[in-house]
């Protein structure tokens, strides 16, 4: 466990990415831009995940003769778990994006538009 707030630069970056992504999703009406927005949100999330596991003074989380992970009872290594989580998250994000793009293409074929405001049926 690392006091992740020390990495404020990366944290700000991650938050900014999420914010930018949300802004894109909320303001753009083009389906592809929305998908891009979602993707940016995903990137922000991934950045956040790796950020919480790392800070400048930590050592790598591999136990060798020279690399002591614990000093005076304090963990000083980077946390390895989030780094495995981020792989999963990236894969999931990829899958979602692929599916979203496939659906977007189909939507363009069937509805003839990429404007999300027009993707609806007559009777609500």
């Amino acid at each position: 466990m690392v006091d992740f707030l020390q990495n404020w630069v990366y944290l700000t970056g991650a938050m900014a990415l999420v914010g930018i992504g949300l802004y894109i999703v909320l303001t753009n009406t083009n389906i592809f831009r929305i998908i891009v927005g979602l993707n940016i949100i995903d990137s922000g999330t991934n950045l956040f995940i790796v950020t919480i596991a790392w800070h400048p003074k930590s050592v790598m989380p591999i136990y060798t003769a020279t690399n002591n992970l614990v000093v005076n009872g304090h963990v000083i290594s980077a946390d390895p778990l989030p780094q495995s989580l981020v792989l999963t998250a990236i894969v999931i994000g990829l899958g979602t994006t692929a599916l979203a793009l496939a659906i977007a293409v189909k939507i363009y074929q069937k509805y003839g538009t990429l404007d999300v405001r027009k993707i609806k049926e007559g009777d609500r």
Partner: protein
Amino acid sequence: MKTYNLAALLVGVPLLMAFSIPLFGFISKQLAKWITVLTLGFEFFFGLYIFLWHIYPFNVIMGNWLPPFGENLYIGPFATVLIILISFVGLMISIYNLWSANHGDVVHFALLFLMFVGGSIGLVSTGDIFNIFIFMEITGISSFALAAYGPERRALGGAFKYLVVSSIGSTLYLFGVLLIYTQLGTLNIAEIAARISQTTSGLLTFAGILLVAGLAVEAELFPFNGWVPDTYTGAVNPVSATLSGIGSVGGVYVLFRILMTVFGKDGNFVSTYGNIDLMALVAILGSATVVIGELSALVQKNVKKMLAYSSMAQMGLVAIGFSIGSKMGSYAGVFQLVNHSIAKAMMFLILGIIVSFGIGEHIEDMKGLWYKSPFLTVTFTIGSLSLLGLPLFGGFWSKFALVDASIQRGGWYDFVIAIVLFASVVEAFYYLRIVGYMFTSKPTSTDKIKVSISPAVPIVAFSILIIAIGVFPQIVGGISWNAAHELTDKMGGYVLNVIPTIVGH
């Protein structure tokens, strides 16, 4: 701690079979469909075995690493009842699909369906909050694809809306999980639950809000449920049945697993750690959902959309039940969840049969269904009456328990239950209106609807089950009570069953 590692098959088999379906698909499309039936039959009977031989509660330990370090599945009474429910509804829908899925990419449809059901079963049995995220994404992606299936273009629109809202929801969930991780350094539910009070409460509150917001998307709570009407209406009927009968179950499960087991602070009525009581927040969301869902359904003339809105409202009821926080409330919640899944899935399936005979979805098209098919009319009526909580049908008991729990809680829940009952009157109006259209009017044409055997089986099974629960509520009652115990007594009911040595704080 009891372990029963064979139960890993519950999650493994459907996923394995799902990805091997294309192989079977090379041989025959029919075979692919039958594989889903067989797999889900296996799941269902395995679940029944666990239930009837009373093997639960137990853990499944992966690779001999004991929790909290290893990943584990925890199958307690709550998970058991949901596994049986999910696999039963899934089995029935897969039998229905033998008849209904006959155009388009049948093989991949079967794949996605099996993946969805398998993912849902994993979702309710895993003991790790990040694995919950993974299973949510598995069910999520398969359900986006399922929702987009079908010849009509509205399926695509619905699927896309679901995808966007759901992605944002799962991102919020992930953020919440990570915030908890930064505080406690663990992802195991049991350990977090035991140590939750060690965290800074401000961050905890923030994480809790993110988690509720993220999970409310799947649990169909307002204002995170915008996707519901479009997606349910757009998808083909078996998919709507799947989403409402299985998907929402998973959503609600996770929401209250997080709130009551992870965040829960035991007491007379479970509340949560942190600065604000998330249970109360969910109760407010639930009430809003019930009212908005029912009122929107009231003015709806499209029966399928009406069912979608009603689905939303019913999930609100479930959420209110759990959010009461007492044993009785959780009992009512579980019971209502079971009744709603069965009844709503059945009604979507019935609608599917009706639509396949060229009758529209509009309420006017339901006119005189009694003369065309008494079977469908009676079963649809059974479903509606069960949802309305009328006796002889399962829903009666859950609504009964829900009101009982709210009144026992007292305080502002009296107000909540008043709103809920008012909304129920509204619900009664629109359901009985459909039933009225079915019963009263002479149809324009009197072509009889011949229901073939494979779609009839699930409908008959569902109706019998609804009536069986209605007459003998103890079928669900006993295990629901255990599930309620698991939820409301988090140390005794959950944590100590997973990590017997842990010390609670």
